[in-house]
């Protein structure tokens, strides 16, 4: 089996890196932590931006992380189509702040931190992040844990095929019930869903994680 080299980015204030490490390892990815000061992302097949509060989430969540060396390297990585990039929670916020993904994350409609399981439906199964999802079984349960989780985007900034997941019951007021998106080139995926928590029956989820499975299939294709 081809080894998929993954970098989990760590900023001061990141807290989800060990969860990501655990989930990726369970799915047989080889994992390194990459501290934000370093800029050697190009050698990896997959870049994972985990959740947390980078730089204390001061100013706005994700706002200061974009000035890190590693982000400059990721911008090059995406432009050169070196591999895939996944941003979860704060990682998603960073990717929108950097401009690698459209839109932005605002305060939840309820003005509260929301931590619960939500149901989402996969609506585009032709992306590197969703190609293994069965169209007859495309509803999944994932957890969210965020205060700035309301995804806001103008219709003219995003194409329909960039939306991978939609909430069945919108928990935070996100535009168009959007729960997960990709960029136009389909090599960057961002979501507030904690997909990395869904990897072990002990955590209350299935062993099978459709997103990791899709990424593996895409990166190991002939």
């Amino acid at each position, binding site marked *: 089996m081809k080894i998929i080299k993954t970098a989990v980015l760590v900023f001061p204030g990141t807290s989800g890196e060990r969860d990501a490490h655990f989930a990726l390892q369970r799915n047989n990815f080889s994992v390194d932590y990459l501290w934000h000061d370093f800029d050697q992302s190009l050698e990896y097949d997959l870049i994972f931006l985990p959740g947390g509060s980078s730089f204390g989430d001061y*100013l706005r969540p994700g706002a200061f992380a974009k000035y890190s060396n590693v982000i400059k390297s990721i911008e090059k990585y995406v432009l050169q189509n070196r591999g895939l990039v996944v941003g979860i929670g704060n990682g998603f916020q960073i990717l929108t702040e950097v401009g690698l993904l459209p839109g932005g994350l605002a305060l939840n409609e309820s*003005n509260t931190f929301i931590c619960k399981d939500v149901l989402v439906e996969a609506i585009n199964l032709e992306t590197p992040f969703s190609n293994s999802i069965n169209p007859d079984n495309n509803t999944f349960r994932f957890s969210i844990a965020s205060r700035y989780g309301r995804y806001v985007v103008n219709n003219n900034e995003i194409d329909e095929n960039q939306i991978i997941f939609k909430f069945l019951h919108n928990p935070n007021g996100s535009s168009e019930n959007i729960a997960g998106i990709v960029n136009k080139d389909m090599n960057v995926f961002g979501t507030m869903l904690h997909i990395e928590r869904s990897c072990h029956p002990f955590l209350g989820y299935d062993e099978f994680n459709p997103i990791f499975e899709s990424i593996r299939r895409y990166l190991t294709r002939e």
Partner: protein
Amino acid sequence: MKKDTPNKEFVFEIKIKLREGILDPQGNVTYKILKKLNYPIEQVNFDKSIRLTIQESDFQKANTIAEEIASNILVNPVLEYYQISQIQEE
């Protein structure tokens, strides 16, 4: 040779507001409470205010720097816009 030294301090206030159409949950909740208390309230908005003290030789240069910081770094143009005002010169 005369050198242009930045010997003055200029203080700017940057007000960051949510764009029209972007829901302001804190403003909405506060509005409801004030309404309940029978105040003649039409709208409540929560803004951010950031003060920058800039050392420069003249106002124009300091203002350019403040504008640059506000538009490039402090504001997320998807959600917010800003207004800038000078509040002090020393």
